[in-house]
């Protein structure tokens, strides 16, 4: 039976983290309540992976020119097994992307969580754009069944100096709606992941806020344009920035 808060020594510490700390024990095992909560969270996360991105509300919320493209992965099942296809622009979509004189293009892709994109992509985009009035920004591109590297193809075709990819991160048990941002200077097909900078864990359940992420992103974008690079060589000193993708990248 759970202890009343005044007797539970963990009650204060729980406020500091979403991690499952201070669970009880039955012998060596977790109590059944915690086992079932875990199983429910896992079931919900799996559902989030398989949800389809509804692009209509996104387009309405962006209130500007939007180009909609899709990857060469025709279904969710193929997308999961064939990341190479998720990185490729579908042949039918190539003609939609015309070259221009752009400092940056924002690409929104479903990645592994359409939920993350539905909830967080537009507010994140707007927080970023208010800090970038002096830059030439291309029309926003929405890519479905897309992985991070589809942004290379898109950025290259548009002739953008920077590609800013807003993508749904792999759902976790406690958060199925985490958004990640990948920044790539001079996007070209075949760009290495080490040539990108990443800001992850953007969401409203105790993750990075839009405002903090946008400050970091704006700083990285200006620094990147100035130094003409992204990736491990773009070291930054801003305390709240996140330059390097986790080693085994989430895409």
């Amino acid at each position, binding site marked *: 039976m759970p*202890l009343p808060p005044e*007797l539970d*020594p*963990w009650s*204060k*510490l729980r406020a*500091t*983290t979403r*991690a*499952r*700390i*201070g*669970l009880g*024990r039955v012998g*060596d*095992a977790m109590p059944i309540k*915690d086992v079932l909560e*875990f*199983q429910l*969270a*896992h079931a919900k*996360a*799996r559902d989030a*992976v398989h949800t389809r991105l509804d692009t209509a509300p996104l387009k309405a919320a962006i209130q500007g020119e939007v180009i909609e493209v899709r990857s060469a992965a025709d279904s969710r099942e193929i997308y*999961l*097994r*064939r*990341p*190479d296809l998720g990185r490729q622009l579908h042949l039918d979509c190539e003609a939609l992307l015309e070259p221009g004189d752009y400092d940056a293009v924002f690409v929104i892709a479903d990645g592994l969580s359409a939920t993350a994109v539905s909830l967080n992509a537009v507010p994140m985009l707007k927080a970023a754009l208010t800090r970038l009035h002096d830059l030439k920004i291309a029309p926003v591109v929405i890519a479905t069944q897309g992985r991070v590297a589809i942004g290379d193809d898109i950025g290259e075709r548009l002739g953008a100096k920077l590609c800013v990819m807003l993508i749904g991160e*792999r*759902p*976790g*048990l*406690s*958060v199925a709606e*985490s958004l990640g941002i990948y920044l790539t200077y001079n996007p070209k097909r*075949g760009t*290495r*992941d*080490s040539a990108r900078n990443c800001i*992850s*864990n953007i969401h409203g359940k*105790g*993750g*990075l806020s839009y405002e903090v992420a946008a400050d970091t992103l704006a700083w990285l974008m200006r620094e990147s344009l100035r130094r003409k690079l992204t990736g*491990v060589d773009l*070291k*930054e*000193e*801003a*305390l*709240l*920035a*996140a330059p*390097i993708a*986790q*080693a*085994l*990248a*989430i895409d």
Partner: protein
Amino acid sequence: MASMARYATSFGGETYRFDDLKSVLACASARRSGDELAGLAAESDAQRVAARAVLADLPLTTFLNEALIPYEADEVTRLVLDSHDAEAFAPVSHLTVGGLRDWLLGYEADSVALRALAPGLTPEMVAAVCKLMRNQDLIAVARKCEVITKFRNTLGLPGRLATRLQPNHPTDDLRGIAASTLDGLLYGTGDAVIGINPATDNVPNCLALLEMLDGLRQRYEIPTQTCVLTHVTNAIEVMNRGGAMDLVFQSIAGSEAANAGFGINLGILQEARAAALALGRGTAGQDVMYFETGQGAALSAEAHFGIDQQTIEARAYAVARAFKPLLVNTVVGFIGPEYLYDGKQIIRAGLEDHFCGKLLGVPMGCDVCYTNHAEADQDDMDTLMTLLTAAGVTFVITVPGADDVMLNYQSLSYHDLLYLRSTFGVKPAPEFEIWLEKMDMVDRAGRMRMAGPQNKMLQRLISAAAA
């Protein structure tokens, strides 16, 4: 060409031909989605067995004469061939791959013989023999391998199972990380390392996290090491600025090009190791490196050179052993279903990676884990952790409630360690075991005490952390 004849076999009235050595190895691998994705997998189950038959008859010396990635083009190949110890290889140099499998399972191949053999084996030999071994063979042989390493405690001793305590936090909140760390310590985890994957991977943040971990370690005099798993280039900068760095971490892979994808090369690893050695922070020993690997890393970096994922993974262990690491672990189910599709594939890969690492003389641990887009669940993790403990795995990774709230995947829980300790009788590193007793965290039966309100000592620790 002679090669056509070398890589062919008649099997059940049908002839199977393989273009080259790489293709024999790839087709002989147990089925997995990553090799299918790369277009390297056997086209049928019968072809897979035929490839194993070809492999079984292949002399081990083949792998010394035929580089899978050319010597001139790849520093990992150069490392493997230049550091090959012919004297250590001598006891098995006359054998085929199948002969090595039998030799390894023989009674004479005990821990002393296997330790002496390790420098004579190349990762390709080890990967090849692995493909001929059933899961029980992988367990039986790995269990005989003893790889002992030291920093502030002693890891890899027989009858011991260490743990990495992984207190990750989505925004690197210091109090949140401290809370998860305390929780883990109360289950007796953290003797391999208390290691954080930073959500924000930069130098100032890394310095702050290291200071907190080091303060905690010193305050409670915990005989363990701490680590922030930052990129090696950050680690060098952190050491330049006087950060409290015990271990240098880096993700590594099995080809020069794949390592370039991680932004590293052998030279930078050497530089970082030298800097960490110069700090002289170890008390029991000076093994200062910590590496992570995982099948699929090379393919995902498009730097696999047509080599199957299990073989190129084994090459990463040759990279690791060149730097005398304290810890190495495969993050086996982390990379996703495009490489290891389901529980069966993850379990097999975990056993393979552990076996290959140990046989090459690497202190191999495992992050027994899976992601939410893989066809796996906690039952599969129960199976793999049980098998790996039977195989004598050096350490496993544990997180609160099996849920990593920063990296968004599931690993083992602190509870799982208690299950492994009771079921197998495995103990933590000896120095850490003594510390747990000194802190009165263990009862008379040797079990971790419950952290309930009746326990004054644990209450005090928790209240101190919350204050």
